[in-house]
């Protein structure tokens, strides 16, 4: 168990998070996520999230390289999410908070959901944005 990383996290993160090792293998899943992600324990995260490495990977790399927490906003699988990544000696703690999601039922719902995303991002002005999220900000202001 990655106790130091978890100790660091408990004071800094919401209760829903996962811890990854240096190879992005899941080594811990917090209890609220057990039903959804518990079966992935021991698996490499990217094996279950197609296309996610290019979205989440840069924040992971930055946190590992700097040794500092990274907060960013990303778009993946139709959802805009706030990503908080905290490095520790024994792992990388990752928390993902859903901010808004696309509704592709019709052009009208799509437009309205884009507007909801715009409002969600407007309230998150302090978050650093990765390059993909910057692109998303241009696309989904």
């Amino acid at each position, binding site marked *: 168990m990655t106790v130091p990383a978890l100790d660091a996290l408990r004071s800094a993160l919401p209760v829903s998070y996962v811890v990854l090792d240096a190879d992005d293998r899941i080594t811990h899943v917090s209890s609220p996520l057990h039903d959804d992600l518990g079966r992935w324990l021991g698996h490499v995260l990217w094996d279950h999230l*197609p*296309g996610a490495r*290019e*979205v989440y990977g840069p924040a992971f790399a930055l946190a590992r390289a700097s040794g500092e927490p990274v907060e960013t906003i990303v*778009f*993946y*699988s*139709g959802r805009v999410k706030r990503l908080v990544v905290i490095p520790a000696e024994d792992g990388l703690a990752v928390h993902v908070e859903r901010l808004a999601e*696309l509704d*592709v*039922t*019709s*052009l*009208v*719902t*799509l*437009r309205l959901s*884009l*507007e909801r995303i*715009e409002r969600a991002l407007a309230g998150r002005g302090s978050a650093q944005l990765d390059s*993909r*999220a910057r*692109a*998303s900000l*241009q*696309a*989904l*202001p």
Partner: protein
Amino acid sequence: MLDEGDRIVEVGPGALGQFGPQVGSVVWDCYPGSKPLFKPYYDSARRTGDEIEFVQFYDGHVARVRAVPRENRHLELYWEHLAHLDTLTIGSFVDSLEQSLEVLEGASTENDRSELRKALRVIEGGSA
């Protein structure tokens, strides 16, 4: 094939995978939010007795639909898939949205294009 109450009563072999399990159900119950997008066209076909063809966006897909009136106010429906939204990443979403909107631009009604323009203004950073 829909009956006069828009209940799915028959499915061709090419659509069995998607619609087969829904035989006996009202199509609007199976596809939430679809009624205002499709029913006006179906009503028109039944009212005039003429087949109607249109392009519609629903559930992330753009399809060309042909509705052919049959006896007893039944409707025979044919679908051709034209484009779909890929929402996996922002890049795939923007690219696929542009493709979908191009398809709709060439075939949609004025109402469709109006909604299209609103969506585009949001995507491009303006106000809706």
